[in-house]
């Protein structure tokens, strides 16, 4: 136990945990509504989509890359799924197709990054960001798709033993990802690749394959988030997921991910996503305008990362 505590104190997640605890206690004093089961579940449901997107983002950041296309891929996958559903394709098949499209987008990102083209991830995913958004607009002719099957709406609208289904999906995915990154050989290879690609390669790690899978995972999680969003709204608009890439990066970075690669954890990212969610929720409860909320979130990102950097130096 002492071992675990020591390890925790050493890690960059530690700061995020402390921050979350402080923030929560402050908000529970300031607002009587904050610390209620319904409000907490509400916050978790609100963050579930960003949090799912942030899973893939964390994988990509650990390998030293970045994925700016997640918001567009989210929209494209959901739009395709919704389009198919409304054109007589069965719900399950349409959802599956939408998620596969996310995977394909991730694969294309990876092709630009890992092949001889050797494009910087920032540029490759920036291109995909534009293509994905554009295609979503083309398919929908710029209009939202309404009237998805009611059956589809049950997925994200439903509860399972009192917990919203999107929250359960989020927790399940984080659990799988966390076990993979922390305890499985192929998970550790993401850190090795991001830490020192050349050394990893010499040691026999297929760094290209590792990077490729990071972008594919990111495509899949973005698409999954898109399905959750479409299901919750029982509709989807081509501008869905706008700016999600920045929220996902923020969650990962607050959770201790290092944009230079080699560092980061899903536990940290989840806490990072919860912090931004709790912050927004708390500021809402305290009647702070959404404009100021953006300012506060930005300041939190800047301070968490600075404190981490200073801690590392000392």
């Amino acid at each position, binding site marked *: 136990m002492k071992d675990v505590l020591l390890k925790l104190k050493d890690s960059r997640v530690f700061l995020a945990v402390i921050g979350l605890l402080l923030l929560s206690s402050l908000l529970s004093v300031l607002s009587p509504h904050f610390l209620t089961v319904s409000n907490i579940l509400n916050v978790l449901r609100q963050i579930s989509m960003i949090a799912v997107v942030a899973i893939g983002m964390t994988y990509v950041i650990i390998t030293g890359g970045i994925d700016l296309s997640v918001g567009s891929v989210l929209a494209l996958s959901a739009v395709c799924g919704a389009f198919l559903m409304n054109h007589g394709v069965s719900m399950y098949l349409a959802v599956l197709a939408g998620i596969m499209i996310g995977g394909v987008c991730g694969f294309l990102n990876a092709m630009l990054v890992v092949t001889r083209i050797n494009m910087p991830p920032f540029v490759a995913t920036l291109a995909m960001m534009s293509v994905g958004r554009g295609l979503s607009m083309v398919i929908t002719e710029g209009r939202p798709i309404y009237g998805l099957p009611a059956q589809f709406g049950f997925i994200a609208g439903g509860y399972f033993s009192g917990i919203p289904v999107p929250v359960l999906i989020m927790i399940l995915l984080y659990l799988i990802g966390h076990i993979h990154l922390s*305890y*499985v050989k192929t998970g*550790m290879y993401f850190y*090795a690749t991001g*830490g020192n690609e050349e*050394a990893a390669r010499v*040691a026999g*790690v297929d760094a290209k394959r590792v990077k490729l899978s990071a972008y594919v995972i990111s495509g899949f999680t973005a698409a999954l988030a898109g399905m959750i969003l479409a299901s919750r709204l029982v509709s989807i608009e081509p501008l869905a997921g706008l700016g999600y890439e920045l929220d996902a990066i923020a969650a990962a970075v607050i959770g201790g991910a290092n944009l230079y690669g*080699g560092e980061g954890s899903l536990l940290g990212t989840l806490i990072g996503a919860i912090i931004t969610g709790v912050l927004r929720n708390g500021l809402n409860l305290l009647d702070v305008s959404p404009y100021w909320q953006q300012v506060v979130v930005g300041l939190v990102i800047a301070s968490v990362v600075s404190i981490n950097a200073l801690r590392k130096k000392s």
Partner: protein
Amino acid sequence: MSNGHLMRLEGISKSFGGVKALQDVDLEVAHNEVLALVGDNGAGKSTLVKVISGAILPDKGRIFIEDKEVSVRNPRDAALLGIQMCYQDLALIDCLDVTTNIFLGREICKRVLGAIDFLSFKKMRMESIRHLKDLGIELQNVREKVKNLSGGQRQVIAVSRAAYWGMRLVILDEPTAALGVREASRVNDLIKSLKQKNISVIVISHNLQHVFYVADRVVVLRHGKKVGEKIIKETDGDEVVKLITGAEFSGQGIA
């Protein structure tokens, strides 16, 4: 050298544009031998070890391992032949701990559900502690991330990783250059102890004191040519310095 050669190089030449970095160099490394490679800056030492470790393809020349000709086209080829170059910064992954670094690429795993390899952290930790102790290395915590280690400790970990992997020839390019006195002597002791593990070592060094301490034999390069080859016990610092600077045999040295 009654036990035969581990490696033999024959007529290695390499030019970069008009610069002849290596000219017709022959080199032999015996089993369980520490060979020091010395020479002034630009003498061709680094180019030569890069040829051996597969980082550079020579224009001409042949490489033999235990009398069998081999082709070394890249570092993977070299590693498969049991040759590993140990770069202080290139070989290790900073954000991973000592154990993970030693085992990277050859992890001990437990297979679950027939497909997922879970890392056996405990086994690897015990094994790396045992292995390091074997080489006379006391490290407080094998769970420490490599980036928190000193230069000497990193060098030691890089070398012991190569040793653990059953390498037969470890190449070190100025392993003690950036180290303090105590750390340097630790690395030097480690180099000597590799002999007992059946590993030969080529070490590039500018520090003749270290060369005389660790090496069995010294090869001197000057302007891309081999200008001297001495058994350490039969030579002294003055002679080696003269070979390096070309004060003696000058007619032979510079083309």
